[in-house]
């Protein structure tokens, strides 16, 4: 206890020097904690996206196809059709839902408000496959899809832009690309997707309504879709379903052997890969931060060596009055550990402030991990012991006579 007190006194005596020395530790600790908070935050964000997306999803698109050596645009030749979706659901028992849709952009007008948003014309199953919830009102029905009813589901962002209170949206009529559509339901918020696009900036309407009236051009197949989202019952069946689906589509569209007409991608797997990459990246950053912590430790060692030299006579005196080498060792070790721990505490404080600022001020997703905080504080104490040992050993090994004579 008195040793701790002695250490604090001697550190306070060189206030400026102590602060500058701990600066290395402070920066190191806060960098480690902030990097981990960023990494964890990104990780959690991706996990939440996977959840909002729904698990076990396959995305089907028509691929560009080589026609006589010329590579056409995506979906140019092979066109997915709503009947493909029905066929997949009928033939593959592992498939839970097949959401088929077309995408487009549209101007939405309500009263004097207007907003440009993304629209999806889709079958009924899309809501299930893409994990959309209808929080107010209702979803559209199979017959509304068949008849091309003038109804629409509104995303939260669009609702907020057009209505003072999204709760009043349901039942109102908006004009989408000049076509009046009745809002029958409000979609639950999903947040940003993995590329940072606002998923709630959307209108979803029956496929036929979209194809015929909103984004369709005359003469086009009103049952045509650009993509399909396929929900599979179990993760283990993903590969099987994706192979079977490709085979089925190739057969239905009479694709020549060896040609790739449709691509089937595992969305969850893509997200996981991205999450994995995020993790590697943030670990790398945290590693760099760890190096700066190590450099801070070297700074502590340096200053402890200076301190030992400066206080050689004091060490000699302490030995003369009966301090054993072990007591001198302990005194300097405690001093360097205290130095490091003070730095760790300040670093912790700074990182908490910084994480708070990034999270609430800048809206980044951060996740503080108590384990990482604990590890970095304990690690810093160990750095104090590790880098403090050599100077302390040097002090304890001094010859009292030489030390007392030291000028």
């Amino acid at each position, binding site marked *: 206890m*008195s040793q701790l007190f002695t250490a604090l*006194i001697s550190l306070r005596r060189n206030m400026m020097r102590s602060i500058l020395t701990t600066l290395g530790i402070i920066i190191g600790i806060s960098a480690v904690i902030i990097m981990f908070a960023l990494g964890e935050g990104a990780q959690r964000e991706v996990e939440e996206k996977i959840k909002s997306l729904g698990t076990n999803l396959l995305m089907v698109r028509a691929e560009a196809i080589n026609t006589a050596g010329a590579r056409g645009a995506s979906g140019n030749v092979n066109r997915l059709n709503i009947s493909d979706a029905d066929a997949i659901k009928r033939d593959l028992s592992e498939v839970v839902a097949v959401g088929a849709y077309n995408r487009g952009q549209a101007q939405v007008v309500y009263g004097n408000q207007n907003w440009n948003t993304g629209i999806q014309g889709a079958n009924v199953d899309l809501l299930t496959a893409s994990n959309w919830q209808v929080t107010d009102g209702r979803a559209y029905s199979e017959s509304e899809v068949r008849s091309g009813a003038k109804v629409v589901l509104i995303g939260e962002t669009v609702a907020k832009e057009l209505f003072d209170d999204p709760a009043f949206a349901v039942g109102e009529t908006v004009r989408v690309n000049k076509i009046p559509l009745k809002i029958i339901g409000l979609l639950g918020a999903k947040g940003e997707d993995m590329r940072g696009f606002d998923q709630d900036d959307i209108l979803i309407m029956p496929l036929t309504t979209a194809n015929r009236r909103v984004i369709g051009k005359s003469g086009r197949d009103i049952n045509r879709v650009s993509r399909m989202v396929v929900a599979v019952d179990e993760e283990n069946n993903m590969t099987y379903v994706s192979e079977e689906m490709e085979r089925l589509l190739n057969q239905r569209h009479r694709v020549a052997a060896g040609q790739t007409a449709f691509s089937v991608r595992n969305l969850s797997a893509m997200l996981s890969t991205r999450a994995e990459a995020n993790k590697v990246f943030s670990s790398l950053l945290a590693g760099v931060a760890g190096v700066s912590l190590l450099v801070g430790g070297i700074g502590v060692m340096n200053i402890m060596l200076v301190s030992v030299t400066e206080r050689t006579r*004091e060490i000699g*005196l302490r*030995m003369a*009055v009966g301090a*054993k080498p072990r*007591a001198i060792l302990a005194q300097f070790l405690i001093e360097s550990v205290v130095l490091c721990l003070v730095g760790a505490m300040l670093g912790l404080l700074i990182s908490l402030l910084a994480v708070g600022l990034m999270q609430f001020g800048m809206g980044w997703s951060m996740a503080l991990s108590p384990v990482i905080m604990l590890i970095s504080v304990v690690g810093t104490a160990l750095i104090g012991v590790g880098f403090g040992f050599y100077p302390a050993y040097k002090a304890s090994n001094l010859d009292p*006579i030489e030390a007392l004579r030291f000028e």
Partner: protein
Amino acid sequence: MNELSSSASTPTIQCEQLSHSFPMAGERFQVLKGIDLTVMPGEMVAIIGPSGSGKSTLMNLIGCLMTPEQGELKILGKSTSGLTKAQLADVRRDHIGFVFQQFNLLARTSALDNVKMPLMYHDEPIKDADERARACLESVGLGDRLHNHPSQLSGGQQQRVAIARALINRPDILLADEPTGALDTHTSGEIMALFRKLNNAGHTVVLVTHEMEVAEQADRIVMVRDGCLLQDSSQHLEGAK
């Protein structure tokens, strides 16, 4: 720890044929050549000699700051031969109080804390540390300077603090190395009077000096030259040649 009252027949310090050498310019320089010296409890002894005579080495040996190459040193009848660094530290803590020429006080630390400092090296915490330190400072006449830092004290006062620090562990030997070397004549006189007073109170005092005027204040003067005891003014003349 206070063994001043230990049997009068046991010498406080007993040097038997102490020899020591240092490496110098590739050879060994024999700094002490078989010193025999006995100090009885309650004595006040001055060790005097010119620089290079070996008196500092003799003092370092008596102070258990080093061990002799040959011969034996007994403190209160116990041999110090073969002791480890840590055991020597215990001997110093329990039996010897050091006073240095340069005072060696901790800067920016109060007189009270300076005097208390040696107590932190006991295995068991000393509970009445403050009272003990205060009593020691009072005994050197600094009862009203407890909280002054060394920079706020005169040279003589600083040396008094150092003497109080030497007394805190109730040592059997007060070992002073040129205690007046950094002081003016008047203050020197005061410090020597203090040693005299402490000796009269029963403390065994060993002074090392090169000044005859200082040495003359002691009961017994031991002269060292070229590593040998040249002269011993007392009736014990074991070391004289």
